[in-house]
């Protein structure tokens, strides 16, 4: 009953406090339920334990030189925190600039269906200047041969519209997250664009998140 007996000014103050408390409450609720970033991907594109404290979602384009440059610092983070960090690879071919990027993504995806995604991924970055050319098909086939893939299954997979759609779905995921350049990393939801941000600030962020 004390609330009804109040004068105008205290009532206004109480009203303002109620509104501010509602603001704080909805903020805390949103922060608690927020999914910073969809870390869903097929198992062949995921490294590290599912219950890792830190998840790195990488949006990358196999034809992008900056993505190749970001590989060593990324590997260093994974090696340093072995078993504590999970990496999820997402395709983000920048097709306006990189003519062969989608073909590379599809080829890697199909190698992944045979359990060789990371090996193929390594080949694509290692020999970026070779396959990102008019002789793309020839080089991609040579990597498949080198990795002892079932060639018929790999070729059939590359023509499968579902694989192309999977690449497009990743691309859409990235667009919805306003990914504008590659590589872009989301470490527990926090964005780091490029190799320098990853190695300078990203590695510190990983350590901070692991200490939580």
């Amino acid at each position, binding site marked *: 009953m004390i609330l*009804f007996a109040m004068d105008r000014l205290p009532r206004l103050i109480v*009203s303002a406090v109620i509104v501010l408390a509602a603001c704080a409450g909805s903020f805390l609720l949103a922060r608690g339920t927020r999914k910073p970033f969809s870390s869903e991907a097929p198992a062949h594109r995921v490294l590290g334990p599912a219950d890792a404290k830190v998840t790195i979602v990488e949006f990358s384009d196999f034809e992008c030189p900056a993505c190749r440059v970001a590989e060593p610092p990324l590997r260093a983070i994974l090696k340093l925190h072995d078993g504590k960090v999970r990496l999820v690879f997402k395709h983000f071919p920048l097709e306006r600039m990189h003519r062969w990027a989608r073909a590379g993504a599809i080829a890697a995806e199909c190698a992944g269906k045979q359990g060789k995604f990371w090996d193929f991924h390594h080949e694509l970055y290692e020999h970026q200047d070779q396959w990102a050319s008019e002789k793309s098909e020839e080089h991609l086939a040579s990597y498949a041969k080198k990795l002892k893939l079932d060639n018929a299954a790999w070729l059939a997979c590359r023509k499968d519209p579902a694989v192309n759609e999977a690449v497009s779905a990743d691309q859409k995921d990235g667009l*919805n997250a306003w990914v504008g350049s590659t590589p872009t990393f989301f470490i527990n939801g926090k964005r780091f664009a490029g190799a320098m941000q990853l190695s300078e600030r990203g590695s510190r962020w990983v350590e901070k998140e692991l200490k939580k």
Partner: protein
Amino acid sequence: MSAKIPPFAGVAARVIVGAVLVYAGATKAAAPPEEFAIVIGSYDVLSRDMVLTVATFLPWVELLVGWSLILGLKLRVAAASAGALFAVFLFSLVSVKAKGIELPNCGCFGDGIHLTLTQGLLFDAVLAALCWVAWTTAPSAWSLDNWAEGGYTGPTNDKR
């Protein structure tokens, strides 16, 4: 004009607009401000220096205005502020369309709902109209204003 709009329509309008603002504000405030700064920067309507500041404070303004509308605190001011926000959002969307900037979505709800620019335009226009309904029907019986301004006529009123 306000006599033609039934009071329940005013309450419904302010709760709808308020809920949208609270959802939009909370999803953006929950994310790092740098995320929303990328969205604002893409619109190319503010100088680079201002982008992060606006990205930090705008979600909280949306939350404050949204809850003020839902709970009915300073209802006319809240409805006018919400109307001003939607006018700014509409101006930004039209400006992006006019400049031919391609955006993946309107970025209105952070990493929540993804509306296209056209959907965002229509949505904001409808909400701006609802702000006007909320403004014309204020003050409202179902509001903190009513209680704070002494609208309550319960037993303790006689004693004062």
